[in-house]
């Protein structure tokens, strides 16, 4: 029986015999463009984590003051104004949505949902100097009361670089089942 072999990691010693990366800011990190693929991926993972941990105020803080958040009800829906959407929030509505999620009398979140998100297949679709559009795939599992449901689809984020860090100027979420009948959506995608 062949013994299962672990791949041997090649150790590359840094000057001074260091194997691990030095802690703290390196020059490379300080000069890296936050809008590169890694920066965008890290941002999306942070966003997913904030949502999974129900830190909705922190999630809201990721958006610009004039942001919009859109979940169309039709595949390839060109416009949020000509037909209904599952969600179409400007910043003010998004704030109301988050404030509502903090309210203990929100019956549809009593008990609370537990969610688990996977974000993957991240690509940068359009890139400018201080903004880019990022496309990603996601799977979201939501468990509440006695049932579990799965959402999946494609997310588009327009990320902008601000003095406070990366922010979401707009976000569009295309669910694969966007035109299916479904129970209420309370936790944002």
């Amino acid at each position, binding site marked *: 029986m062949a013994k299962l072999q672990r791949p041997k990691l090649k150790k590359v010693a840094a000057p001074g015999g260091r194997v691990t990366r030095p802690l703290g800011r390196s020059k490379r990190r300080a000069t890296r463009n936050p809008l590169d693929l890694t920066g965008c991926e890290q941002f999306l993972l942070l966003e997913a984590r904030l949502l999974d941990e129900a830190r909705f105020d922190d999630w809201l803080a990721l958006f610009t003051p004039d942001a919009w958040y859109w979940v169309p009800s039709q595949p390839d829906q060109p416009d949020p104004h000509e037909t*209904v959407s599952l969600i179409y929030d400007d910043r003010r509505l998004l704030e109301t949505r988050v404030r509502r999620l903090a309210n203990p009398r*929100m019956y549809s979140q009593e008990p609370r949902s537990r969610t688990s998100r996977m974000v993957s297949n991240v690509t940068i679709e359009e890139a400018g100097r201080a903004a880019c559009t990022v496309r990603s795939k996601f799977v979201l599992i939501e468990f509440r009361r006695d049932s579990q449901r799965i959402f999946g689809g494609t997310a588009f984020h327009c990320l902008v670089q601000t003095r406070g860090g990366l922010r979401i100027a707009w976000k569009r979420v295309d669910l694969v089942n966007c035109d299916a009948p479904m129970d209420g959506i*309370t936790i944002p995608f």
Partner: protein
Amino acid sequence: MFRNTISFANTVNGTGSLVLTDDLEIYNRIGMGLSSEGAEWIEIGRGFDSDVPDAHGGRRGKNSTSEVYIRNTLEAWVGYMTNGHARGVRAAS
């Protein structure tokens, strides 16, 4: 105008809206309550003390949480079924 209608549907009636989601939850809980054998009576008295007469001979709630619409519906139904003869019941004309 059309845009306002779409916007209203999104925020009030839609599946991800700020209103309907709680309504769906409550409808679901009512269904579970009705299917249980724990309670023989359904209480529909909410808002009874604050309902006011309306111009059509019925009553209307002081606010949107009054259950006056259920009482009005039942009253009208009893009126139809008894041709207005049931005691204490307003006939629906």
